[in-house]
Protein backbone atom coordinates (compact mmCIF):
# COMPACT_ATOMS: atom_id res chain seq x y z
CA UNK A 1 0.00 0.00 0.00
CA UNK A 2 1.42 3.36 -0.96
CA UNK A 3 1.67 6.30 1.43
CA UNK A 4 -1.27 8.02 -0.29
CA UNK A 5 -3.44 4.96 0.28
CA UNK A 6 -2.57 4.81 3.96
CA UNK A 7 -3.52 8.47 4.32
CA UNK A 8 -6.69 7.90 2.33
CA UNK A 9 -7.93 5.01 4.45
CA UNK A 10 -7.06 6.77 7.68
CA UNK A 11 -8.92 9.93 6.65
CA UNK A 12 -11.83 8.02 5.16
CA UNK A 13 -12.42 6.09 8.39
CA UNK A 14 -12.03 9.24 10.46
CA UNK A 15 -14.43 11.15 8.19
CA UNK A 16 -17.07 8.42 8.39
CA UNK A 17 -16.62 8.16 12.16
CA UNK A 18 -16.96 11.93 12.69
CA UNK A 19 -20.01 12.05 10.43
CA UNK A 20 -21.74 9.33 12.44
CA UNK A 21 -20.74 10.92 15.73
CA UNK A 22 -22.04 14.27 14.55
CA UNK A 23 -25.50 12.77 14.16
CA UNK A 24 -25.38 10.78 17.38
CA UNK A 25 -24.36 13.65 19.65
CA UNK A 26 -27.17 15.17 21.65
CA UNK A 27 -25.32 18.38 22.46
CA UNK A 28 -25.39 20.63 19.35
CA UNK A 29 -21.97 22.14 20.12
CA UNK A 30 -20.40 18.67 20.16
CA UNK A 31 -22.13 17.93 16.86
CA UNK A 32 -20.64 21.09 15.41
CA UNK A 33 -17.18 20.04 16.63
CA UNK A 34 -17.49 16.67 14.92
CA UNK A 35 -18.61 18.41 11.75
CA UNK A 36 -15.47 20.57 11.87
CA UNK A 37 -13.38 17.42 12.22
CA UNK A 38 -15.25 15.98 9.26
CA UNK A 39 -14.50 19.02 7.09
CA UNK A 40 -10.89 18.76 8.10
CA UNK A 41 -10.77 15.14 6.92
CA UNK A 42 -12.38 16.13 3.63
CA UNK A 43 -9.64 18.72 3.19
CA UNK A 44 -7.10 15.96 3.72
CA UNK A 45 -8.87 13.74 1.19
CA UNK A 46 -8.62 16.53 -1.40
CA UNK A 47 -4.90 16.58 -0.72
CA UNK A 48 -4.60 12.89 -1.53
CA UNK A 49 -6.23 13.76 -4.87
CA UNK A 50 -3.54 16.39 -5.50
CA UNK A 51 -6.08 19.22 -5.22
CA UNK A 52 -4.01 21.47 -2.96
CA UNK A 53 -5.93 24.67 -3.57
CA UNK A 54 -9.33 23.08 -2.98
CA UNK A 55 -8.00 21.40 0.15
CA UNK A 56 -6.98 24.70 1.71
CA UNK A 57 -10.20 26.41 0.62
CA UNK A 58 -12.17 23.56 2.16
CA UNK A 59 -10.56 24.19 5.52
CA UNK A 60 -10.65 27.98 5.16
CA UNK A 61 -14.29 28.34 4.07
CA UNK A 62 -16.07 25.34 5.55
CA UNK A 63 -14.12 24.66 8.74
CA UNK A 64 -13.05 28.26 9.30
CA UNK A 65 -16.01 30.39 8.21
CA UNK A 66 -19.22 28.43 7.83
CA UNK A 67 -18.77 26.48 11.05
CA UNK A 68 -18.17 29.70 12.96
CA UNK A 69 -21.59 30.80 11.76
CA UNK A 70 -23.07 27.43 12.84
CA UNK A 71 -21.56 27.81 16.30
CA UNK A 72 -22.87 31.37 16.53
CA UNK A 73 -26.34 30.22 15.59
CA UNK A 74 -26.25 27.37 18.13
CA UNK A 75 -25.15 29.80 20.80
CA UNK A 76 -27.58 32.47 19.61
CA UNK A 77 -30.57 30.17 19.79
CA UNK A 78 -29.49 28.88 23.17
CA UNK A 79 -29.79 25.25 22.20
CA UNK A 80 -27.69 24.27 25.20
CA UNK A 81 -30.62 22.51 26.84
CA UNK A 82 -30.45 19.30 24.87
CA UNK A 83 -33.42 17.56 26.50
CA UNK A 84 -35.82 19.75 24.57
CA UNK A 85 -34.28 18.61 21.33
CA UNK A 86 -35.51 15.04 21.57
CA UNK A 87 -37.45 14.19 18.46
CA UNK A 88 -40.47 11.97 18.39
CA UNK A 89 -39.75 9.47 15.68
CA UNK A 90 -42.37 7.00 14.65
CA UNK A 91 -42.98 6.10 11.09
CA UNK A 92 -40.08 8.35 9.99
CA UNK A 93 -37.56 6.23 11.86
CA UNK A 94 -38.67 3.02 10.14
CA UNK A 95 -38.67 4.74 6.75
CA UNK A 96 -35.18 6.05 7.47
CA UNK A 97 -33.89 2.61 8.39
CA UNK A 98 -35.45 1.17 5.25
CA UNK A 99 -33.80 3.72 2.98
CA UNK A 100 -30.44 3.33 4.75
CA UNK A 101 -30.45 -0.41 4.21
CA UNK A 102 -31.34 0.13 0.56
CA UNK A 103 -28.46 2.59 0.17
CA UNK A 104 -25.96 0.25 1.84
CA UNK A 105 -27.07 -2.62 -0.41
CA UNK A 106 -26.75 -0.42 -3.48
CA UNK A 107 -23.26 0.73 -2.50
CA UNK A 108 -22.19 -2.85 -1.75
CA UNK A 109 -23.51 -3.93 -5.13
CA UNK A 110 -21.51 -1.23 -6.89
CA UNK A 111 -18.33 -1.98 -4.93
CA UNK A 112 -18.50 -5.72 -5.34
CA UNK A 113 -19.68 -6.10 -8.90
CA UNK A 114 -18.95 -2.92 -10.79
CA UNK A 115 -15.69 -1.53 -9.46
CA UNK A 116 -13.30 -3.70 -11.46
CA UNK A 117 -14.42 -2.76 -14.95
CA UNK A 118 -14.86 0.94 -14.34
CA UNK A 119 -11.62 1.76 -12.56
CA UNK A 120 -10.94 5.48 -12.22
CA UNK A 121 -7.59 6.64 -13.49
CA UNK A 122 -5.98 9.77 -12.15
CA UNK A 123 -4.85 12.14 -14.88
CA UNK A 124 -1.12 12.09 -15.48
CA UNK A 125 -0.72 15.80 -14.77
CA UNK A 126 -3.08 15.80 -11.79
CA UNK A 127 -0.35 17.17 -9.51
CA UNK A 128 -0.01 20.21 -11.71
CA UNK A 129 -3.76 20.74 -12.08
CA UNK A 130 -4.37 21.11 -8.35
CA UNK A 131 -2.12 24.13 -7.91
CA UNK A 132 -3.39 27.66 -7.40
CA UNK A 133 -1.74 28.79 -10.63
CA UNK A 134 -3.63 26.25 -12.73
CA UNK A 135 -6.97 26.84 -11.03
CA UNK A 136 -6.59 30.58 -11.62
CA UNK A 137 -5.65 30.14 -15.25
CA UNK A 138 -8.69 28.01 -16.00
CA UNK A 139 -11.13 29.90 -13.78
CA UNK A 140 -10.44 33.28 -15.35
CA UNK A 141 -10.42 32.18 -18.97
CA UNK A 142 -12.52 29.10 -19.66
CA UNK A 143 -14.92 29.44 -16.72
CA UNK A 144 -15.15 33.20 -16.84
CA UNK A 145 -18.93 33.36 -17.04
CA UNK A 146 -19.68 31.11 -14.06
CA UNK A 147 -17.15 33.13 -12.10
CA UNK A 148 -18.91 36.43 -12.83
CA UNK A 149 -22.30 34.89 -12.09
CA UNK A 150 -20.95 33.86 -8.69
CA UNK A 151 -20.72 37.52 -7.78
CA UNK A 152 -24.46 37.92 -8.48
CA UNK A 153 -25.13 34.87 -6.31
CA UNK A 154 -23.11 36.39 -3.49
CA UNK A 155 -24.94 39.68 -3.93
CA UNK A 156 -28.27 37.90 -3.60
CA UNK A 157 -26.99 36.16 -0.48
CA UNK A 158 -25.91 39.48 1.05
CA UNK A 159 -29.34 41.01 0.44
CA UNK A 160 -31.04 37.91 1.84
CA UNK A 161 -28.91 37.87 4.99
CA UNK A 162 -29.55 41.56 5.70
CA UNK A 163 -33.32 41.20 5.22
CA UNK A 164 -33.51 38.11 7.44
CA UNK A 165 -31.60 39.68 10.30
CA UNK A 166 -33.31 43.04 9.99
CA UNK A 167 -36.76 41.53 10.30
CA UNK A 168 -35.87 40.13 13.68
CA UNK A 169 -34.46 43.37 15.04
CA UNK A 170 -37.30 45.60 13.83
CA UNK A 171 -38.65 47.63 16.72
Amino acid at each position, binding site marked *: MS*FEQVVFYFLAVLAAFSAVMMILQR*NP*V*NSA*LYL*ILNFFCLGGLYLTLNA*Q*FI*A*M*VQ*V*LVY*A*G*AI*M*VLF*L*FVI*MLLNLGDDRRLREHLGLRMYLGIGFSVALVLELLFIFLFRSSNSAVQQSANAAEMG*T*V*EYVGKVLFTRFLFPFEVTSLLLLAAIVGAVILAKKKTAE
Partner: protein
Amino acid sequence: MDIIEPLVKIVFIFLITLTTVAYLVLVERRVSAFIQNRIGPNRVGPAGLLQPVADIVKLFLKEDIVPKAANKFVHSLAPLISLVVAMTTFAVIPFGNSIHLFGRDIKLMIADVNVGILYILALSSLGVYGITLSGWSSNNKYSLLGGLRSSAQMISYELSMGLSIIGVLMIAGTLRLDKIVESQAQGMWYFWRTPISFITFVIASFAETNRLPFDLPEAEPELVGGYHTEYSGMKFGLFFLAEYANMITASAIIVTLYLGGWQLPFVGHIGLPDLAVSLLQIAAFGVKVGLVLLFFIVIRWTIPRFRYDQLMNIGWKVMLPLALANILITGVALLW
Protein backbone atom coordinates in the same frame (compact mmCIF):
# COMPACT_ATOMS: atom_id res chain seq x y z
CA MET B 1 11.02 9.85 2.34
CA ASP B 2 13.00 11.58 5.02
CA ILE B 3 11.26 12.28 8.32
CA ILE B 4 14.35 13.06 10.41
CA GLU B 5 15.10 16.39 8.73
CA PRO B 6 11.64 17.96 9.19
CA LEU B 7 11.46 16.59 12.74
CA VAL B 8 14.74 18.25 13.65
CA LYS B 9 13.49 21.51 12.17
CA ILE B 10 10.18 21.25 14.04
CA VAL B 11 11.90 20.65 17.37
CA PHE B 12 14.25 23.54 16.63
CA ILE B 13 11.37 25.90 15.82
CA PHE B 14 9.37 24.80 18.88
CA LEU B 15 12.31 25.36 21.20
CA ILE B 16 13.02 28.77 19.68
CA THR B 17 9.35 29.78 19.89
CA LEU B 18 8.94 28.63 23.49
CA THR B 19 12.11 30.38 24.68
CA THR B 20 11.17 33.51 22.78
CA VAL B 21 7.71 33.48 24.35
CA ALA B 22 9.19 33.11 27.83
CA TYR B 23 11.55 36.02 27.35
CA LEU B 24 9.08 38.10 25.35
CA VAL B 25 6.87 38.19 28.43
CA LEU B 26 9.80 39.41 30.48
CA VAL B 27 10.76 41.99 27.84
CA GLU B 28 7.17 43.17 27.70
CA ARG B 29 7.04 43.62 31.48
CA ARG B 30 10.37 45.42 31.54
CA VAL B 31 9.49 47.69 28.61
CA SER B 32 6.10 48.53 30.08
CA ALA B 33 7.81 49.31 33.39
CA PHE B 34 10.24 51.56 31.57
CA ILE B 35 7.42 53.37 29.77
CA GLN B 36 5.49 53.84 33.01
CA ASN B 37 8.59 54.88 34.93
CA ARG B 38 8.65 51.74 37.13
CA ILE B 39 11.34 49.12 37.57
CA GLY B 40 9.58 45.88 36.64
CA PRO B 41 10.48 42.33 37.69
CA ASN B 42 14.18 42.26 38.66
CA ARG B 43 14.38 39.96 41.67
CA VAL B 44 14.47 36.42 40.26
CA GLY B 45 18.00 35.82 39.03
CA PRO B 46 20.32 38.52 37.71
CA ALA B 47 18.24 41.46 36.38
CA GLY B 48 15.11 39.29 36.59
CA LEU B 49 16.37 36.92 33.90
CA LEU B 50 14.97 33.85 35.65
CA GLN B 51 11.50 35.37 36.03
CA PRO B 52 10.08 33.30 33.10
CA VAL B 53 11.23 30.08 34.80
CA ALA B 54 9.46 31.10 38.00
CA ASP B 55 6.32 31.97 36.02
CA ILE B 56 6.23 28.60 34.30
CA VAL B 57 6.78 26.67 37.53
CA LYS B 58 3.99 28.69 39.13
CA LEU B 59 1.60 27.88 36.29
CA PHE B 60 2.32 24.16 36.66
CA LEU B 61 1.80 24.16 40.41
CA LYS B 62 -1.54 25.99 40.38
CA GLU B 63 -4.76 24.08 40.82
CA ASP B 64 -6.73 23.30 37.69
CA ILE B 65 -10.19 24.66 38.49
CA VAL B 66 -13.04 23.59 36.21
CA PRO B 67 -16.29 25.38 37.05
CA LYS B 68 -19.09 22.93 37.77
CA ALA B 69 -21.40 24.70 35.32
CA ALA B 70 -18.90 24.29 32.48
CA ASN B 71 -18.93 21.79 29.67
CA LYS B 72 -15.86 19.81 30.81
CA PHE B 73 -14.75 18.37 27.48
CA VAL B 74 -15.02 21.58 25.48
CA HIS B 75 -13.47 23.50 28.36
CA SER B 76 -10.27 21.45 28.04
CA LEU B 77 -10.39 21.28 24.26
CA ALA B 78 -10.43 25.05 23.70
CA PRO B 79 -6.92 25.90 24.99
CA LEU B 80 -5.60 22.89 23.10
CA ILE B 81 -6.98 24.22 19.80
CA SER B 82 -5.57 27.66 20.50
CA LEU B 83 -2.08 26.36 21.19
CA VAL B 84 -1.91 23.87 18.31
CA VAL B 85 -2.97 26.53 15.83
CA ALA B 86 -0.53 29.07 17.25
CA MET B 87 2.42 26.68 17.25
CA THR B 88 1.94 25.21 13.79
CA THR B 89 1.33 28.31 11.69
CA PHE B 90 5.06 28.80 11.47
CA ALA B 91 5.44 25.72 9.24
CA VAL B 92 5.46 27.55 5.91
CA ILE B 93 7.59 30.54 6.89
CA PRO B 94 11.19 30.46 5.63
CA PHE B 95 13.61 31.55 8.34
CA GLY B 96 16.70 31.51 6.16
CA ASN B 97 18.01 30.56 2.76
CA SER B 98 19.20 26.99 2.14
CA ILE B 99 22.09 26.10 4.41
CA HIS B 100 24.82 23.59 3.56
CA LEU B 101 25.33 21.34 6.56
CA PHE B 102 26.55 17.74 6.98
CA GLY B 103 27.12 17.41 3.26
CA ARG B 104 23.64 18.35 2.10
CA ASP B 105 21.51 21.38 1.38
CA ILE B 106 18.85 21.99 3.98
CA LYS B 107 16.04 24.31 3.14
CA LEU B 108 15.26 26.49 6.12
CA MET B 109 11.51 26.12 6.16
CA ILE B 110 9.51 23.24 7.50
CA ALA B 111 7.01 22.62 4.71
CA ASP B 112 7.61 23.81 1.18
CA VAL B 113 4.07 23.69 -0.22
CA ASN B 114 2.40 25.33 -3.19
CA VAL B 115 -0.32 27.01 -1.11
CA GLY B 116 1.89 28.61 1.57
CA ILE B 117 -0.11 31.73 2.42
CA LEU B 118 -3.45 29.95 2.18
CA TYR B 119 -2.21 27.50 4.81
CA ILE B 120 -1.52 30.41 7.15
CA LEU B 121 -4.98 31.89 6.53
CA ALA B 122 -6.69 28.52 6.92
CA LEU B 123 -5.00 27.88 10.26
CA SER B 124 -5.61 31.35 11.61
CA SER B 125 -9.28 30.98 10.70
CA LEU B 126 -9.32 27.86 12.91
CA GLY B 127 -7.82 29.85 15.77
CA VAL B 128 -11.21 31.49 16.26
CA TYR B 129 -12.57 28.23 17.69
CA GLY B 130 -10.23 28.22 20.68
CA ILE B 131 -11.66 31.54 21.76
CA THR B 132 -15.33 30.99 20.85
CA LEU B 133 -15.41 27.58 22.51
CA SER B 134 -13.63 28.69 25.67
CA GLY B 135 -16.11 31.55 25.96
CA TRP B 136 -19.09 29.28 25.50
CA SER B 137 -17.94 26.27 27.51
CA SER B 138 -17.08 28.23 30.66
CA ASN B 139 -20.76 29.09 31.13
CA ASN B 140 -19.76 32.48 32.48
CA LYS B 141 -21.20 35.76 31.25
CA TYR B 142 -17.87 37.52 30.99
CA SER B 143 -16.35 34.59 29.13
CA LEU B 144 -19.26 34.39 26.71
CA LEU B 145 -19.18 38.10 25.93
CA GLY B 146 -15.42 38.10 25.60
CA GLY B 147 -15.43 35.04 23.35
CA LEU B 148 -18.19 36.42 21.14
CA ARG B 149 -16.64 39.84 20.78
CA SER B 150 -13.29 38.33 20.06
CA SER B 151 -14.50 35.93 17.42
CA ALA B 152 -16.51 38.66 15.66
CA GLN B 153 -13.43 40.85 15.74
CA MET B 154 -11.14 38.15 14.45
CA ILE B 155 -13.32 37.17 11.53
CA SER B 156 -13.84 40.82 10.57
CA TYR B 157 -10.13 41.55 10.48
CA GLU B 158 -9.37 38.25 8.79
CA LEU B 159 -11.04 39.71 5.71
CA SER B 160 -8.82 42.77 5.68
CA MET B 161 -5.83 40.56 6.30
CA GLY B 162 -6.66 38.29 3.38
CA LEU B 163 -7.28 41.27 1.12
CA SER B 164 -4.06 43.04 2.14
CA ILE B 165 -1.90 40.11 1.11
CA ILE B 166 -3.38 40.16 -2.41
CA GLY B 167 -1.33 43.30 -3.19
CA VAL B 168 1.90 41.42 -2.51
CA LEU B 169 0.73 38.32 -4.40
CA MET B 170 -0.06 40.34 -7.53
CA ILE B 171 3.55 41.53 -7.69
CA ALA B 172 5.15 38.26 -6.61
CA GLY B 173 2.85 35.95 -8.60
CA THR B 174 3.13 33.04 -6.18
CA LEU B 175 1.79 31.82 -2.84
CA ARG B 176 5.09 30.26 -1.83
CA LEU B 177 6.68 32.32 0.92
CA ASP B 178 10.22 31.36 -0.06
CA LYS B 179 9.61 32.67 -3.59
CA ILE B 180 8.11 35.85 -2.15
CA VAL B 181 11.25 36.39 -0.10
CA GLU B 182 13.45 35.72 -3.12
CA SER B 183 11.58 38.35 -5.13
CA GLN B 184 12.53 40.95 -2.52
CA ALA B 185 16.26 40.71 -3.18
CA GLN B 186 18.44 43.84 -3.29
CA GLY B 187 16.33 45.80 -0.83
CA MET B 188 13.24 45.74 -3.08
CA TRP B 189 11.06 45.05 -0.07
CA TYR B 190 7.29 45.06 -0.51
CA PHE B 191 7.13 47.53 2.34
CA TRP B 192 8.18 50.20 -0.19
CA ARG B 193 6.31 48.80 -3.13
CA THR B 194 2.83 48.41 -1.61
CA PRO B 195 2.75 50.67 1.45
CA ILE B 196 -1.07 50.64 1.84
CA SER B 197 -1.08 46.87 1.87
CA PHE B 198 1.68 46.92 4.51
CA ILE B 199 -0.25 49.28 6.78
CA THR B 200 -3.57 47.43 6.55
CA PHE B 201 -1.80 44.12 7.10
CA VAL B 202 0.00 45.31 10.23
CA ILE B 203 -3.23 46.73 11.68
CA ALA B 204 -5.07 43.50 10.89
CA SER B 205 -2.31 41.48 12.57
CA PHE B 206 -2.75 43.51 15.74
CA ALA B 207 -6.46 42.72 15.69
CA GLU B 208 -5.89 39.05 14.86
CA THR B 209 -3.50 38.57 17.76
CA ASN B 210 -5.89 40.41 20.12
CA ARG B 211 -3.25 42.91 21.10
CA LEU B 212 -3.92 46.43 22.24
CA PRO B 213 -5.43 48.66 20.87
CA PHE B 214 -7.63 45.73 19.81
CA ASP B 215 -7.66 43.63 22.98
CA LEU B 216 -11.43 43.97 23.51
CA PRO B 217 -11.85 40.25 24.37
CA GLU B 218 -10.00 40.78 27.61
CA ALA B 219 -10.81 44.39 28.32
CA GLU B 220 -10.25 44.09 32.08
CA PRO B 221 -12.41 47.00 33.24
CA GLU B 222 -15.55 45.57 31.63
CA LEU B 223 -15.00 41.85 31.09
CA VAL B 224 -12.63 40.78 33.89
CA GLY B 225 -10.49 38.30 31.96
CA GLY B 226 -12.65 37.88 28.88
CA TYR B 227 -12.79 34.41 27.39
CA HIS B 228 -10.24 32.96 29.83
CA THR B 229 -11.90 34.21 33.03
CA GLU B 230 -12.64 30.64 34.15
CA TYR B 231 -9.23 29.18 33.32
CA SER B 232 -6.44 28.60 35.79
CA GLY B 233 -2.99 27.10 35.89
CA MET B 234 -1.52 25.67 32.71
CA LYS B 235 -4.83 25.79 30.86
CA PHE B 236 -4.65 29.53 31.20
CA GLY B 237 -0.97 29.16 30.41
CA LEU B 238 -1.81 27.58 27.06
CA PHE B 239 -3.90 30.61 26.07
CA PHE B 240 -1.12 32.86 27.23
CA LEU B 241 1.46 30.86 25.30
CA ALA B 242 -0.80 30.85 22.24
CA GLU B 243 -1.22 34.63 22.35
CA TYR B 244 2.51 35.24 22.41
CA ALA B 245 3.27 32.51 19.88
CA ASN B 246 0.69 34.13 17.61
CA MET B 247 2.47 37.42 18.06
CA ILE B 248 5.78 35.86 17.03
CA THR B 249 4.21 34.21 14.01
CA ALA B 250 2.48 37.44 13.00
CA SER B 251 5.78 39.29 13.24
CA ALA B 252 7.48 36.59 11.20
CA ILE B 253 4.77 36.86 8.53
CA ILE B 254 5.09 40.65 8.42
CA VAL B 255 8.85 40.32 8.03
CA THR B 256 8.51 37.64 5.35
CA LEU B 257 5.91 39.45 3.28
CA TYR B 258 6.98 43.05 3.59
CA LEU B 259 10.41 43.40 5.14
CA GLY B 260 12.43 41.10 2.93
CA GLY B 261 12.36 37.97 5.12
CA TRP B 262 15.89 36.67 5.65
CA GLN B 263 17.30 38.95 2.93
CA LEU B 264 20.25 41.02 4.04
CA PRO B 265 21.23 43.38 1.21
CA PHE B 266 24.80 43.17 -0.12
CA VAL B 267 25.85 40.37 2.21
CA GLY B 268 26.49 38.10 -0.76
CA HIS B 269 29.07 40.45 -2.28
CA ILE B 270 31.65 40.83 0.45
CA GLY B 271 33.20 37.42 -0.04
CA LEU B 272 32.20 35.59 3.14
CA PRO B 273 32.06 31.78 3.17
CA ASP B 274 28.64 30.32 2.35
CA LEU B 275 27.98 29.07 5.84
CA ALA B 276 28.64 32.51 7.35
CA VAL B 277 26.28 34.12 4.82
CA SER B 278 23.54 31.62 5.70
CA LEU B 279 24.00 32.23 9.42
CA LEU B 280 23.98 35.99 8.91
CA GLN B 281 20.73 35.69 7.00
CA ILE B 282 19.12 33.68 9.80
CA ALA B 283 20.35 36.32 12.25
CA ALA B 284 18.90 39.06 10.02
CA PHE B 285 15.53 37.31 10.09
CA GLY B 286 15.71 37.01 13.87
CA VAL B 287 16.63 40.66 14.35
CA LYS B 288 13.84 41.86 12.05
CA VAL B 289 11.27 39.70 13.87
CA GLY B 290 12.59 41.02 17.18
CA LEU B 291 12.17 44.61 16.06
CA VAL B 292 8.58 44.01 14.91
CA LEU B 293 7.86 42.33 18.26
CA LEU B 294 9.25 45.37 20.07
CA PHE B 295 6.94 47.51 17.95
CA PHE B 296 4.00 45.34 19.07
CA ILE B 297 4.97 45.86 22.71
CA VAL B 298 5.55 49.61 22.49
CA ILE B 299 2.19 50.10 20.77
CA ARG B 300 0.47 48.13 23.52
CA TRP B 301 1.75 50.46 26.22
CA THR B 302 1.27 53.76 24.41
CA ILE B 303 -2.10 53.59 22.65
CA PRO B 304 -5.43 53.32 24.49
CA ARG B 305 -8.04 50.67 23.69
CA PHE B 306 -10.77 51.18 21.10
CA ARG B 307 -14.43 50.96 21.99
CA TYR B 308 -16.15 47.93 20.46
CA ASP B 309 -18.28 49.87 17.97
CA GLN B 310 -15.20 51.84 16.88
CA LEU B 311 -13.32 48.61 16.39
CA MET B 312 -15.99 47.06 14.18
CA ASN B 313 -16.41 50.30 12.24
CA ILE B 314 -12.70 50.47 11.51
CA GLY B 315 -12.70 46.86 10.40
CA TRP B 316 -15.67 47.03 8.05
CA LYS B 317 -15.80 50.65 6.96
CA VAL B 318 -12.14 51.66 6.76
CA MET B 319 -9.92 48.61 6.47
CA LEU B 320 -12.04 46.64 4.03
CA PRO B 321 -12.50 49.42 1.43
CA LEU B 322 -8.88 50.48 1.86
CA ALA B 323 -7.57 46.97 1.23
CA LEU B 324 -9.83 46.61 -1.82
CA ALA B 325 -8.75 50.01 -3.17
CA ASN B 326 -5.16 48.91 -2.74
CA ILE B 327 -5.78 45.91 -4.99
CA LEU B 328 -7.24 48.09 -7.72
CA ILE B 329 -4.40 50.63 -7.44
CA THR B 330 -1.74 47.92 -7.50
CA GLY B 331 -3.43 46.46 -10.58
CA VAL B 332 -3.31 49.78 -12.43
CA ALA B 333 0.30 50.34 -11.40
CA LEU B 334 1.34 46.89 -12.61
CA LEU B 335 -0.47 47.20 -15.94
CA TRP B 336 0.97 50.63 -16.66
